[in-house]
């Protein structure tokens, strides 16, 4: 790369200096590319510097991700046994069964609630809200996206766990995580709806079709891939959230139970990563479980993101 960038500008400068106004003919006699005015050395150097800065920025994004993934996989794979997925956690040993179930139940509940609220919110913002109301509402959920999750956890703790005397449990965890997911799904819904071509809506309006029909048969149908992708991304984000869980579900070694959604602490994988780690527990068994839990979460996130990609690719192919 540097050889090319360093070598060619010299010749280019000679060409531009030597031929000036008649550069077209002179250049043509030297080489076929000479038809075009030569690129200055300065421009080439500028291009190279900018290219390097971009590559560096990309490396800065990718390096920590790779490092993290390699670290997690390195710690977990060496001691990996498939049966940890079905073995119960017993004190600081055993497997991941209860935390795994806990995470699945908490994440599903949170995404279910968040999806309903967010999709309706997104539809309202995109289709019905106008003027200042719309800006205020949009600002509100964008601010919500910026609130640190631990603050949301604390709010959940103060209002739900303590304020409503629910104690630690499934319900406060689900509610707090759903609040965390709402901005992402709302944003995805709103922007997918906004991308539905106006000509569809106009065509439907001009036929005198009711707005509900247009919404159901045309607008939502075109927006569904975008909304589903938003839901998957939101799931990937909340599934690894730890801070809110410290305040709301806490940890135990029982199975999550829909019959006891309050007053029963529920285990979860992110909490396990933190609580069983070498920072909290200087016990090898526990540390291995912590790494296993991290690996399972990493795989979850990866699968969710890949699924989102597949949906986007699929809908592109079928969009025409």
């Amino acid at each position, binding site marked *: 790369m540097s050889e090319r960038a360093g070598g060619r500008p010299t010749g280019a400068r000679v060409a531009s200096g030597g031929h000036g106004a008649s550069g077209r003919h002179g250049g043509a006699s030297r080489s076929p590319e000479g038809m075009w005015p030569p690129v200055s050395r300065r421009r080439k150097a500028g291009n190279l510097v900018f290219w390097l800065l971009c590559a560096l920025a990309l490396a800065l994004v990718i390096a920590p991700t790779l490092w993290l993934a390699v670290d997690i996989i390195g710690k977990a794979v060496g001691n990996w046994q498939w049966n940890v997925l079905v073995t119960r956690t017993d004190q600081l040993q055993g497997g991941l069964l209860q935390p795994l179930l806990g995470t699945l139940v908490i994440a599903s509940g949170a995404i279910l609630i968040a999806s309903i609220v967010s999709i309706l919110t997104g539809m309202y913002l995109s289709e019905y809200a106008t003027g200042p109301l719309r800006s205020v509402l949009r600002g509100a959920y964008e601010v919500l996206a910026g609130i640190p999750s631990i603050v949301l956890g604390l709010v959940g703790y103060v209002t739900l766990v303590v304020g409503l005397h629910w104690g630690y449990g499934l319900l406060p965890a689900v509610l707090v995580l759903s609040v965390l997911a709402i901005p992402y799904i709302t944003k995805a819904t709103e922007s997918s709806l906004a991308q539905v071509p106006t000509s569809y809506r106009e*065509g439907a309006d*001009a*036929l005198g*079709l009711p707005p509900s029909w247009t919404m159901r048969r045309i607008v939502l149908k075109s927006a569904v891939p975008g909304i589903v992708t938003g839901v998957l991304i939101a799931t990937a984000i909340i599934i690894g959230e730890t801070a809110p869980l410290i305040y709301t579900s806490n940890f135990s070694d029982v199975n999550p139970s829909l019959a006891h959604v309050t007053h029963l602490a529920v285990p979860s994988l992110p909490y396990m990563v933190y609580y069983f780690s070498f920072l909290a527990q200087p016990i090898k068994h526990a540390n291995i479980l912590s790494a296993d839990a991290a690996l399972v979460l990493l795989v979850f996130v990866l699968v969710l993101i890949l699924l989102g990609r597949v949906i986007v690719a699929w809908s592109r192919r079928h*969009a025409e």
Partner: protein
Amino acid sequence: MSTQADPAQPAEAAGPVRGRVDQAVVTAPHAATAGPVALTTAGLTLGFGTRTILSDVCVDVRRGAVTALIGPTGSGKTTLLRTFNRMNDRVSGYHRKGDVLLDGRSIWHPGVEVMELRRRIGMLFQRPNPFPMSIMENVVAGARAHRLVGKAGMKDVAEKHLTAVGLWGAVKDRLKDSPFRLSGGQQQLLCLARALAVTPEVLLLDEPTSSLDPAATQAIEELVRTLVPDITVIIVTHNLAQALRVADRTIFLNQGRMVENGETRQLFEHPAEEETAHYVAGRFG
């Protein structure tokens, strides 16, 4: 077709706006020349925000005829056309004075349901805009939603209207396919079939051939002639030759004012207004 409207309807329905009807009929220059009036605008002034697009427009549109709306860019042709089926109502900053009467009854009368109004006054846009569903579903979408046809009758309705626009032969084996694989002209014909399937009385065409090639343009123009006199057609066009070819009557708008309204030949060959003479001679716009 419902174009053979009940003659008693205008008189009985005019009610609160009858005064304006009379005024409009009087101000329209060619009111006495031809058959019954389908649409009338009475002192229609309309704008968005601080801009006024139409000022004091008084025209009448003959039932069962093709009427062309011509005028330079920005003269308010499309705005006037979109007012007829109330497509402007929800544009921000929209304000209006005056009235539009369909069969003598205000289209903004509280008793008028906008969905039903738009079923009666159909529209075709500059660019074909089929829905993202199969060709067959496109044709019957409106008819199904307005409960003009049940599930069983869908195929018949699709065949009838696709045949009417001359598209049946080309698509009869691919009714389940996406309409986006059709050519632009075919897509526009499909949109026309879709508009016809809800049995409109009036059809608004907003430069329907501006994105089409000459052959497709000819197909659409020939089709437009077959729609009258069952359907009243209003066509916005930039193409004066097209107006001459398809329109029985022509309305010339300039800077939001109605300049002249009359028989197409009369208007092109012996315009009453100097502005019209300039425009049809290609001297401005």
